[in-house]
């Protein structure tokens, strides 16, 4: 059953993606927006039911199965998307959010089943670790998308042309604020999640866990976010420089996530 609910959610998210593409490349389709947002909301509801049902039937630890984690990440991305839509009245992030959400949910629904979790990973602490990290990922993804949208808006303001995506972007300072707030929210989650993960790994494997590539990548990512936060706070870095950092952080984050599939001692392998 969770898979059926998720499939419905995917179809409804598809409307969101189609609309985002339309918006980005041809601009001005305001009349469709209430309909699209309603459809996507219903999709998120089905998504939630799917998540809730799988937790209900297989227990809270089922979140640790990689696919559930992805479904959770997708769901949190949607929650943040609704929040930004409500707070900043913008659909602009959709062009980044929907492709990722669809990829994650499609993988959850139809992807290959991952191996069972290794024994040390099966604990309540691990659930905390995973949920914190996923929340951090979701928030920091918005920092990344905001930095890209900032560049687009900055460019259109510099070249004095407002067409396509740029015609409906929020104000430059609003995008900036959105990205910075996501960073302020995402960074503590990410930090706490990594601390929790380190405690678990230290207890299970001893100091050797630092050799795990996923953990190394995660630490690099964390360091980049720290730099991003610091340069913004101390020197007010915005625009291009901030976008470079946010993109670097996003790439390392993706690599760290992808490391799950390569298989390492982290979680999946014995």
């Amino acid at each position: 059953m969770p898979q059926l609910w998720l499939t419905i959610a995917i179809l409804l998210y598809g409307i969101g993606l189609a609309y985002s593409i339309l918006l980005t490349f041809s601009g001005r389709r305001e009349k469709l927006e209430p309909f699209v947002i309603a459809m996507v909301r219903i999709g998120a509801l089905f998504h939630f039911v799917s998540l809730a049902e799988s937790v209900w039937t297989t227990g809270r630890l089922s979140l640790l199965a990689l696919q559930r984690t992805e479904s959770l990440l997708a769901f949190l991305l949607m929650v943040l998307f609704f929040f930004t839509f409500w707070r900043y009245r913008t659909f602009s992030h959709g062009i980044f959010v929907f492709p990722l959400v669809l990829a994650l949910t499609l993988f959850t629904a139809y992807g290959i089943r991952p191996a069972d979790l290794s024994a040390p990973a099966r604990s309540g602490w691990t659930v905390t670790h995973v949920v914190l990290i996923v929340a951090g990922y979701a928030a920091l993804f918005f920092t990344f998308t905001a930095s890209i949208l900032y560049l687009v808006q900055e460019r259109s303001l510099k070249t004095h042309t407002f067409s396509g995506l740029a015609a409906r972007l929020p104000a430059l300072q609003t995008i900036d604020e959105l990205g910075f707030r996501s960073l302020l929210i995402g960074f503590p989650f990410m930090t706490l999640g990594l601390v929790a993960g380190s405690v678990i790994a230290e207890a299970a494997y001893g100091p050797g866990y630092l050799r795990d590539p996923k953990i190394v990548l995660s630490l690099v990512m964390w360091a980049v976010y720290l730099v991003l936060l610091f340069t913004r706070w101390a020197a007010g870095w915005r625009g291009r420089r901030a976008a470079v950092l946010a993109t670097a952080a996003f790439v390392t984050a993706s690599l760290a996530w992808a490391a799950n599939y390569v298989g390492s001692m982290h979680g999946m392998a014995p």
Partner: protein
Amino acid sequence: MNYTLLGVNHRTAPVEVRERLAIPESRLPDAMRLLLQTPGVSEGIVFSTCNRVELLARSPQAAPDLKPFLHEFFRIHAAELTPHLYEYRGADAIRHLFRVASSLDSMVVGESQILGQVKEAYAVARTVGAVNGHLDHLLTRAFAVAKRVRTETNVGSSAVSVASVAVELAKKIFGTLEGKNVYLVGAGKMSELAAKHLLAHGAGTIFVANRTHERAVKLAERFQGKAMLFEGLYETAADADIVITSTGSPLPIFRKEHGELFLARRKNRPMFFIDIAVPRDVAADMNKLDGIFVYDIDDLQSVIAGHVSGRRAEAERAEAIVEAEVRRFEERIHTLDVVPTIVSLQDHLEAIRQAEIDKVRGRLGALTPEQEIAVEAMTRGIVNKVLHTPMTALKEAARDSHEGRQAEAGTLIELVRRIFNLERDSEKQGTGKR
């Protein structure tokens, strides 16, 4: 009766030509008086704004030639202006007036200033006595059309002028103008207008710097802002989020190194430069700095142009309204035309009757009151009987002209006038009473 409109606007003439034709407010009454003296002109009005100079005249007979006016008033040779001039007659002149008043002919379509300017010209024309009657009626109608266009279409809804484009761009950068400080460098009329718009949208403090400090103090007072020393400009400008420059300086005042300085002081918070000075006050390479956005007057105009194309559909609806109104007005002209014809026809026959009675009275000698009444009644009866058919026909023609058969009605009016030789009388009618 005919309307003639002669003019130049921003499309037909470059600013150098328009400058030479611009009529200051104080000379507008003289211009209108002079226009009235042009042969064949019974009523006239002159519009002069920064984007157009237009003469509109009404004449009872054939269209007058307004070009001599240009020579007489501006001392510019007509041949020099001919390539820039446009001339409209009849319905075309009416249409042009309606389009101007509705701001469809403006550089920034939908801007609201033009209607005010037309109304001001109208007020002047009334005090001078240049409009009375028909042209008055036409102008009042033009105001009504402008109002209809404004309320029934969205032509005037988005950015309408340089000042409001500046506000819109500031909002694109800062989101809200709440607490954003504005620095006016140079105390020009345009920058004052822009500052007023920004304030109306919530901007914070207004700083003013001007080479002549007294002017800065005066302008700052008007906005309850702060007058700054021009010499201290580079030290204080970083406090402003929006800088509007309009000085007469031949060299840029703000260069890249200043921009870098401001950004460092502002911790890279964005800064918006609106440069309405020609030559420019802000160096072009400032726009290359991250976080600094520079718009000069051409950039603002191009943004305005973008809005114009976005509102094309609305403009088309507005044009349709104008077209319908032109037709309605023309129909009305013809309906109105019947009344003077009827009146002069009656006057004409009445004059004949009186003349005949006077002529015959001498031969009849003294008449008793009863006989007097009988003669009166008889002649009146004859006149009324004769008048009955042409008057019915004219009234029918008036009704027809309502239904869009103006041509036939026009011919009939023309015919009646010819048969009864009314031309001379009607002229008195047209220029004299309302």
